[in-house]
């Protein structure tokens, strides 16, 4: 089975397969590397790592293993309940052919109940034509910052830390409207360590989950309005994403340029859209992500700003 890098170190197991339906599991070990940075003192399994767990299990149960191995889109993803160290994730997968692509829908649960629901689209890297970005995203940003927001300043605004801090620099910001941020991809990132010398180039595809996570962190920065928020700051609740497309892979040496735009706001709930480009070519398109801002509860054990935590108002 071809190698692919993953932010999740644990092993994904297939417990049964019946035609297009299968069940996969993952023990979320407390020493998963992502927990150190997501978040310090407040470990929550990143929602995008749930997506990556589904991706890996899907590849193990792919009805046509020789083709359509790259995640070309995420149709809908909703996070319903946080996943924590020690949880056992179980997902029911259902495959469906869709023209030249394959769709895999997953219902993910922990022992406590439903955790997430998502649909991944798989296609062939070879058949994806690079889409053309409109000139304004290739040339520059409409609201350039004279002084970019650098990692030290980013850390004052979002709680993510190594190895899950996936924004390097904010180069454009129009508060409450749009933001432009950069993230460089390097083969020295921790998830590439497991790739052996025999792996081919496709093993170096930056995980779709992390392309999306990086863009979402940029969206979080737009919400924080560029203002510092510390522990006890507002909670960001990701309701879900839809219409996510990944036209071409991201590889070491690429610098992702994320564009995030606020499309709609209702009180303290916001929807964002945008895209990411590498050298002017689109690598990510996001039709819609819904984020709610909630004031934190006063209890000390809720300090921090957990993302991907669903509220049940």
């Amino acid at each position, binding site marked *: 089975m071809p190698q692919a890098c993953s932010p999740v170190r644990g092993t994904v197991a297939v417990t049964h397969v019946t035609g297009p339906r299968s069940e996969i599991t993952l023990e979320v070990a407390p020493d998963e590397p992502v927990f150190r940075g997501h978040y310090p003192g407040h470990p929550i399994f990143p929602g995008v790592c749930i997506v990556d767990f589904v991706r890996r299990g899907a590849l193990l149960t792919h009805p046509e293993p020789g083709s359509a191995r790259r995640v070309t889109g995420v149709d809908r993803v*909703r996070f319903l309940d946080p996943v924590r160290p020690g949880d056992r994730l179980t997902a029911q997968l259902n495959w469906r052919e869709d023209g030249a692509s394959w769709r895999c829908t997953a219902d993910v649960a922990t022992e406590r109940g439903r955790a997430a629901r998502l649909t991944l689209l798989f296609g062939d890297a070879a058949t994806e034509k690079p889409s053309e970005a409109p000139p304004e995203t290739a040339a520059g940003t409409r609201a350039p910052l004279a002084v970019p927001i650098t990692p030290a300043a980013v850390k004052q605004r979002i709680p993510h830390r190594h190895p899950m801090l996936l924004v390097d620099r904010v180069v454009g910001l129009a508060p409450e409207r749009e933001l432009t941020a950069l993230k460089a991809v390097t083969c020295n990132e921790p998830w590439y360590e497991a790739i052996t010398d025999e792996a081919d180039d496709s093993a170096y595809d930056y995980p779709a989950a992390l392309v999306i996570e990086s863009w979402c962190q940029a969206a979080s920065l737009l919400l924080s309005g560029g203002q510092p928020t510390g522990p006890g700051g507002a909670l960001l609740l990701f309701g*879900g994403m839809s219409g996510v497309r990944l036209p071409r892979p991201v590889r070491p040496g690429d610098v992702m340029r994320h564009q995030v735009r606020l499309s709609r706001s*209702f009180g303290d*709930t916001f929807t964002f859209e945008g895209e990411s480009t590498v050298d002017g070519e689109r690598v990510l398109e996001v039709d*819609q992500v819904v984020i709610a801002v909630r004031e934190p509860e006063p209890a000390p054990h809720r300090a921090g700003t957990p993302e991907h935590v669903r*509220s049940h108002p």
Partner: protein
Amino acid sequence: MTNTAGTVLDREDLRRTVAHILDIDPSQLTDEARLQDVGGDSLLALEVVVVLEKKYGVRFSEEEMKTFTTFSQTHDLLAVKLGSA
């Protein structure tokens, strides 16, 4: 039924659209069921609003959003906005 520039409101097409966002089968989205009883919550309600705004070329106010309790109410409000009531 033909849609002309998205202004003709097909009830069953709307039902399928809303059911897709709520991740349920259209048959579960009955006219009078409360959206929150079939899996909707405040964040999903916003997704429904944004998708409907894009699909039908309308805009809802926060006040109007609060009236989206059942599918029937959603349909009727949208029909009024589209002038097809």
